[in-house]
């Protein structure tokens, strides 16, 4: 992988087993700089395992992960520092990960967090917590952010707002890899897609490429046809 081919993250032959179960089977895909890549798959398809193996949180059995820039993995279903306020958590992440100056205010404004800053994380609703966590991920200043189910728990309005916000960060040079099980959400925000099913990649490409390959009109139909 070189800086000139546009790729900033390349996953090759990634395999992960849990005993006899092959959670990931020879998974390979490429992420391009500044894009939003959606990893789409039903529950249990291996999306979280893939993200944990790519980020190094979990050891992999085989395969390589090449990256041109540091990445940050934002797990799903976590409620870190539940006794602390959102404002404090962002302040901590800003200092701990040495966030770029001014990024905190931009992230807070972009994700509509001002009203949540004094609330404890443990007391937030699922959707509020998801937005606060996205802020944590974006505040780390890492060029590549892997977010597991970033729209889970958000209502339609929030989903659109967050999607808009993620697009804006991608335009500013951040590369986002999102694991999404709601295909309609993925179609709304992602530039390209990796279709994951049963721990294996069933397709990779833009919406047009995938629908053309599957001979279907929509991403949902293409997903069903290819997996």
């Amino acid at each position, binding site marked *: 992988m070189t800086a000139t081919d546009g790729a900033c993250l390349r996953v090759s032959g990634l395999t992960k087993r849990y005993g006899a179960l092959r959670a990931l089977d020879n998974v390979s895909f490429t992420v391009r700089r500044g894009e939003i890549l959606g990893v789409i798959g039903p529950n249990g398809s291996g999306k979280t395992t893939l993200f944990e193996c790519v980020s190094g949180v979990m*050891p992999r059995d085989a395969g390589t992960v090449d990256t041109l820039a540091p990445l940050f993995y934002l797990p799903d279903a976590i409620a870190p520092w539940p006794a602390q306020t959102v404002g404090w958590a962002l302040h901590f992440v800003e200092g701990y990960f040495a966030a770029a100056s001014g990024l905190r205010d931009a992230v807070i404004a972009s994700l509509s967090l001002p009203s949540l800053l004094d609330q404890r994380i443990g007391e937030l609703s699922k959707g509020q917590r998801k937005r606060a966590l996205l802020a944590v991920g974006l505040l780390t200043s890492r060029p590549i952010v892997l977010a597991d189910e970033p729209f889970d728990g958000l209502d339609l309005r929030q989903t659109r707002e967050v999607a808009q916000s993620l697009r804006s960060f991608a335009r500013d040079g951040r590369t986002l890899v999102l694991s999404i099980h709601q295909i309609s959400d993925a179609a709304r925000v992602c530039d390209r897609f990796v279709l994951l099913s049963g721990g294996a990649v069933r397709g990779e490409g833009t919406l047009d490429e995938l629908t053309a390959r599957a001979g279907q009109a929509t991403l949902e139909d293409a997903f069903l046809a290819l997996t």
Partner: protein
Amino acid sequence: MRSLRSPRACLFAKEWRELMSSRAWWVMLGVMGPLVGMSFISAVTAYGELSGVNGTAAGVGEAFSPLIGIWAPTFSACELAAAFLLPFVGIRLVSGDLQSGASKIEMQHPLSSRSRLLIKAAVLMCGWMLATLAPLIGVVLWMSYGGTVYTPELSTVLAGHVLNAGLTIALAAAAAALTEHPATAAIVTLTVTVGTWLINFAAAVNGGWWERAARLTPTAMVAEFQRGLVRADLVMVALALIVCGLAVAWTWLRLGLSATKRAQLSVAAAIATVIVVFAATRVTASWDASESRRNSFTKSEEAALAAITGDLHIEAHFAPEDPRRSDLEHNAFRKLRRAVPGVRIEYVSATSVGLFEQTSEHYGEIQYELSGKRDVSRITTADGVLTSVLTLAGIGPPPELDAEMFRGHPLAARPRGAAVIYYGVWPLAVAALAIMVQRRK
């Protein structure tokens, strides 16, 4: 809010904040007051009565030292807190991050997981030191009553409890890292604590290897420090166990390691610790920090013992549960081992109680052997042992110097104000602080 730029400073501030948010810590802090207060008040009361309060037993306190009369019982409350309260605070701090998912975020920072764990341990130790304010208030109260403080012995007691807290923190961290749920970690920690008590119990019944192992348990270690004795072997063992606990915790907290690799590293840490512990048992250096030299013979007696040449071998025919054996060990052999590091002492018995051995010809004998010469005695006091050894060595009794006699610090005082401070002011102050801190945004 000011941004802390050093990741370590950020993490320390975060861990401290998490500790302050932990109800477990506030409960421990709140309980420490009454717990220490009860020990301190009863210790001062007993000390005062034996020193002549209300006309009782005047003069007995002449042999009294605050180390045994006040500091040991007062600080013993710390041992209880370290065994039953501190583990939960430690588990809360380590497991909390694992349960909430915070560790998955924090561990993606290049700061090593070792540094992160050490910061956690340091914060826990700072929290423990704050809790230790309770017995330190006792020191101030004691001085206000006119009591004397001999800094080396008080520092030794404090150091023993700090080491014990370090052991607890390391154990709690390892348990929290190894298990998936805090409740399981708590069970593991308490199991280890109870396990060390079982070793002590087995030692009292069986002697032998159990007795040797029991000398290395946290309870035995704290007891030595509370007697004012700093033993290099115990310090080494405690430090090795602390490092081992933290190493195991570190191994299981690191990201991206397979379970097999974690298990291998943990076993390697355990093996290294066992080696260090065995090596430590060969170390005999110790320092008697007590003002009364309760762990040592007098300087003249030590000088006389130092003149002994040849191998000194002692066989004491007492069963493990025979109280004379305990007297002999604690009052005489402990001093002899320090004065004559090469001495070889063996206990011989056919049973654990000794009740049915009383009729045996040699039961109750202490057999001395030095360079082929033998002597037998049944005296279990320090003076008796010293006389036997010196006689066998052909060395005359050392002079009894008045300057070497510890005259004690009797103090016929009542624990004025202690109940108000420990049972009233302390819990109220802790509760008020807890509410204030918990409300902080």
